[in-house]
Structures are given as C-alpha cells and as structure tokens.
C-alpha cells in the first residue's frame, strides 16, 4: 500500500484489504505463557461489518456511540464499526470501577450518546435492518470525539473529522516512511490519541501489522514490550517519555540478555516532555541488544491536531544525546500539511526565530473545535495572525523554533513564577525524581490567594518513614537547580498526587485536594515568612 491513505480510513481498512495477512494481534500473558489473538484483514472486515450492522440497527446516523471496551480486539472493532456506520465514536476508558463508570456516564450525558459499547453490555437486540448505515463520509463528516485528559480544566472533546484523521495519518506515514513492511508493538491505552491513531489506525492504514498489549501488562513487566519488539522483529513503536525510563529501570538484565532490538527503526517519544537523560540511559542500557539511538523520534502533538504535529523524521540527523540535559530536545519539523508559529500572545504576533513563545498550529489535521463548546472552541481554535487567513490552534504549550525545528519548553499553565523567574512544574518534578533516585510521584503547583504572590508548593509521595533531612535535601536541590525556593514542600502518603487517566500528573486536581486539606500529609517544610523572596 502506498504512503497515501485512501480517501476514507474506513474504506482503506475494509474495501481494499480482504486477505489473510495479519491486521493485528493482541497479546496476553498467563504466567510466563504468552497468548496471541491474531486477526487477519479478512477477520477484521467481517467482524467490523457485522458490528456496524448491529450498531446501525440500534442508533441513527450521526449518533454518538461511546466505545468503552477494555484494551483489546473488541475496542478496535467497535471503534471502526462506528466510523463504518456513520456514527460518531467517543473512545473512553472501560467502566470497570465506580469512578470510571461515572466518567462514562458524564461522557454519555455531555455527548447525548445513544449507545455505550462495553464488555458485559446487554445482548444485541436484533437489528431492524441489514445495512450498515452511511459508509462513504466526506472530509467534513465527524469521525470521532477525542476527549482530552487536560489537567487544568474539565475534559473537552476534540471534534475529529474524517479529513483531519486522514491528513494526520498521512503525515505520520510521511514522517517515518511507514509501509506494509513495518511492524509495530504498542501497549498504549486505545482511548487516548496516541494509542488510537499511532498504535491502531496508522498501522492499519499502511498495512503494517501491529502487536498490541494491555497497558497493565506493560506496567507489570516493562520488559514484555521489548520482548515483543524483539520476537516480532518490530520496526515501529513508541510511548511517552516515562515508558523508556520504566523499561530502563525495571527490566532486569537477566531478562533482557537475549533481546535483539536491531530491527527497531522508529522509537517515538511524545505526549509528555521528552528528556534527553531518558533517551541516553535507554540507549546505553540497550546498546548491547542492538538498539540504535538513531531510532529515537521525539515528537510533539496533541488531540486537537488528531495526534501528530511535529517529530524528528526518519531521515533527520540523530538526536544529540550528549547535549545538556536541561536543554529542550529537538522535536523535529512540522508534519506534512501542518504549520507552526511561535507567537507573543500579548501582541498577537509571531516572535523572532529562537525566541520562546506560545506554540500555534494550523493545517489539515486540526480538529473542527470542541464538541458543543463554542466559547472554548473560539478561544483555542480561533487564533489569527496578520496577513494570514488560516485558523490557528493556540496549543497552550510554550516553545521555540530554531532552524525550522520545534523545541518545547513547557505548558503555559504549568509555569511557576517567582520574582520574574519562570520554572516549569514538570522540571521541578523531574528534579525531585532525580534527587530521590526513583520515579517519584510528585506535583509542583502554584497556590494563589487571588491577591498576593502565589505560593509554590511541591508535593512528593513518600512511601517510607521520612525526616527533616529528606525535606531539606529536596529543598536544597530545587533551590540549587532553579534558584528558587518553594514555599512549601510536603511529603505525603502514596496516592496523594492525582493522576489523569493516562497517568500524567494532574496538578490542578492535586492542588485542589491540597487546598481542601484532603491529603495525607506526613511531613511538611515551609519557607520562613521573613526570608527574602
């Protein structure tokens, strides 16, 4: 299959492929035993068509359908069946707990969904007709709503059209020269943009078979990810930065001696800040297994642009692993069909090359807006520049462009400011993890009384007994690294740091719990009031 996907992702998946080649496999473990459930393109086509008939029989064209199967083949089939039948899919985490059930209910209410696909749903009612509904959508038709796990505001549903999806998949294939000769391995949750588009839809569109696994199976034994890369001779994989740290730290040497990672051509790192130290440690740890540092493909993206905005392309120079760890990692050039501007939002004008500013994005991959949220849509998707009639997305992220390449320096809303000094919360959190020598759950945030200067609070989960010495060590490290003394450093019992569904630190939620006094604080250090700022 060529690098250009067909007009419609569904047509590409179902009309053109009807053979015994593997579409994907889903791997589970029972003890040491690995069990793969493999679906050919013929299987996929038959199951998706049947599911589309069933969905069409229970809903109307354009209805929202929540796809909340656990990670696995049913999720893939359910999602594609929605698109095939002209229904709007709404990917969601499986409602296995009370909190997840409540989240699905909120999603169903806010989208007026007429059907929830999940394990254990009531048996299919007999379809009242045999057709699959509409299945030749135009570019402006809505394919799905990608609800984002943004930390500081209520989740919002990015409206992804068939045209935007097709453009973004084309850009992904173009950046990394993906073909049917590639093979992917992914553990990412399928209801997030990276797991849905990067791990499932793009590989399917290019005819590249992929091996999928449950995120929990990866978290439990990170080496499983690498074992599948090795045994499948896979060329394409990726995940957020923490996945590489987890694999480096938790895969036992004895368990990785036989790995052969020499086929790994594209190792994407995206969705959270890319850390050079992480890349260097991973490359060093797995060099003897044939892993090539040239495979690293740091990137930048967000659901409001389907998934992908920019990345290091397969034919770009390798990431410089020897540069200063504190300097942002090169996140490559904009994908085909997208453009980036760094903007001074106060003036509404682009900044000179190399200057930090707000990252704005435009192009064929842009979402149509947020579902039923005209104010938020206008605020985020309504960026305008002089002499440019394009619609620009204000990403909320901060960075700069040098030699045409994008560098991310933080999220605007997570900038902590003290006396004109700006520090990104993620950097303080990384420093704490560095000092403790482990992947510590930590949240840095600003607490404002609405009048005076904000208090900077650093909250660290600490499993064992602690002492004032621990607190002082953290305070000193942060002060030394950022020339900034937090107002409060608190050690809390595990569970205090709130996380989003994708495992990112939810700083605003953690801050709210802190302010409400709802956290199990074990020890706290406060900056003396008399001290100079």
């Amino acid at each position, binding site marked *: 299959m060529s690098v250009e996907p067909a007009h419609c992702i569904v047509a590409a998946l179902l009309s053109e492929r009807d053979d015994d080649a593997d579409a994907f496999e889903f791997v589970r473990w029972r*003890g040491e035993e690995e069990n793969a459930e493999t679906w050919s393109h013929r299987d996929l086509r038959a199951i998706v068509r049947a599911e589309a008939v069933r969905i069409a029989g229970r809903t109307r064209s354009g209805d929202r359908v929540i796809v909340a199967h656990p990670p696995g083949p049913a999720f893939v089939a359910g999602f594609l069946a929605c698109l095939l039948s002209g229904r709007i899919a709404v990917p969601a985490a499986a409602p296995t*707990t009370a909190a997840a059930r409540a989240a699905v209910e909120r999603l169903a209410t806010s989208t007026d969904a007429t059907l929830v696909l999940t394990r254990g749903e009531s048996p299919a009612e007999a379809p009242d007709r045999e057709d699959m509904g509409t299945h030749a959508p135009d570019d402006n038709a809505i394919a799905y709503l990608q609800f984002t796990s943004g930390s500081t505001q209520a989740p919002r549903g990015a409206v992804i059209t068939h045209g935007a999806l097709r453009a973004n998949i084309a850009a992904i294939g173009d950046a990394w020269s993906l073909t049917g000769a590639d093979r992917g391995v992914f553990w990412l949750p399928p209801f997030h943009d990276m797991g849905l588009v990067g791990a499932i839809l793009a590989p399917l569109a290019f005819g590249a078979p992929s091996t999928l696994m449950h995120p929990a*199976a990866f978290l439990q034994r990170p080496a499983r990810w690498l074992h599948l890369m090795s045994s499948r001779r896979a060329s394409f994989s990726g995940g957020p930065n923490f996945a590489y740290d987890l694999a480096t730290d938790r895969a036992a040497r004895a368990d990785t001696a036989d790995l052969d990672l020499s086929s790994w051509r594209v190792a994407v790192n995206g969705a959270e800040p890319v850390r050079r130290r992480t890349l260097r440690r991973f490359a060093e740890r797995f060099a003897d297994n044939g892993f090539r540092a040239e495979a690293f493909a740091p990137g930048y993206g967000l659901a409001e642009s389907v998934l992908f905005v920019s990345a290091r392309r397969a034919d770009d120079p390798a990431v410089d692993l020897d540069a200063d760890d504190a300097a942002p990692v090169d996140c490559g050039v904009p994908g085909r069909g997208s453009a980036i501007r760094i903007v001074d939002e106060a003036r509404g004008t682009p900044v000179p090359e190399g200057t930090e500013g707000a990252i704005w994005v435009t192009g064929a991959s842009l979402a149509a807006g947020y579902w039923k949220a005209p104010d938020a849509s206008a605020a985020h998707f309504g960026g305008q520049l002089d002499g440019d009639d394009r619609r620009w997305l204000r990403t909320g992220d901060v960075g700069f462009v040098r030699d045409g390449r994008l560098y991310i320096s933080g999220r605007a809303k997570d900038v902590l400011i003290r006396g004109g000094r700006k520090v990104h919360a993620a950097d303080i959190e990384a420093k704490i993890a560095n000092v403790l020598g482990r992947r510590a759950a930590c949240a840095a945030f600003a607490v404002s009384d609405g009048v005076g200067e904000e208090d900077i609070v650093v909250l660290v989960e600490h499993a064992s007994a602690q002492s004032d010495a621990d607190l002082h060590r953290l305070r000193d490290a942060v002060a030394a690294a950022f020339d900034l003394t937090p107002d409060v450093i608190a050690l809390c019992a595990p569970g205090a740091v709130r996380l989003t569904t994708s495992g990112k630190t939810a700083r605003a939620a953690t801050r709210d719990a802190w302010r409400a006094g709802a956290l199990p604080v074990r020890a706290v250090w406060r900056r003396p009031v008399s001290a100079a700022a």
Partner: protein
Amino acid sequence: MPAFSEAEIRAAIRASLASALSVAESTLDDDRDFDAYGLPSLEAVELAGELEDFLGREIDAEAIFDHPSVAQLARHLASAA
C-alpha cells in the same frame, strides 16, 4: 503450587493494599474500588507483585483493572487458581 482459600487471598490483598497506602487495615473497605483510594496504576501493579510473592503464582495485571476491589479481586483469584 499452594492453593489458597478466598478468605486467605482476601487477607493478603488487604495487607498489601494497607501497606501500599500506608493506612491501617481496619480502615479498608473490601468493596471500595482501588482507584477510589487514589492508588495510581503503577502502584496497583506493584500490589499485584506483592500478591504474586504471597500466592506463589503470576497474576495477570489486567485482573487488577477488571476486578478492582479487594472483594472482587479475591473472588477472581480464588476461582482462577
């Protein structure tokens, strides 16, 4: 492989969870979902590791997500022995 009763498994889960959360076992509610305690997924998976040591067999990490309370997980593990 030693076989454990559902009650024994339940006791092991309670001990592991109390340790992970640093709370007294008496404060735990067997029907409360793990995530309602604010247990992050990484630590939930570590809970599975402790249970593996106790039960002497591997535990499918998905089970923690599919049976997300002390009572549900104990029932599942007892029946899937």
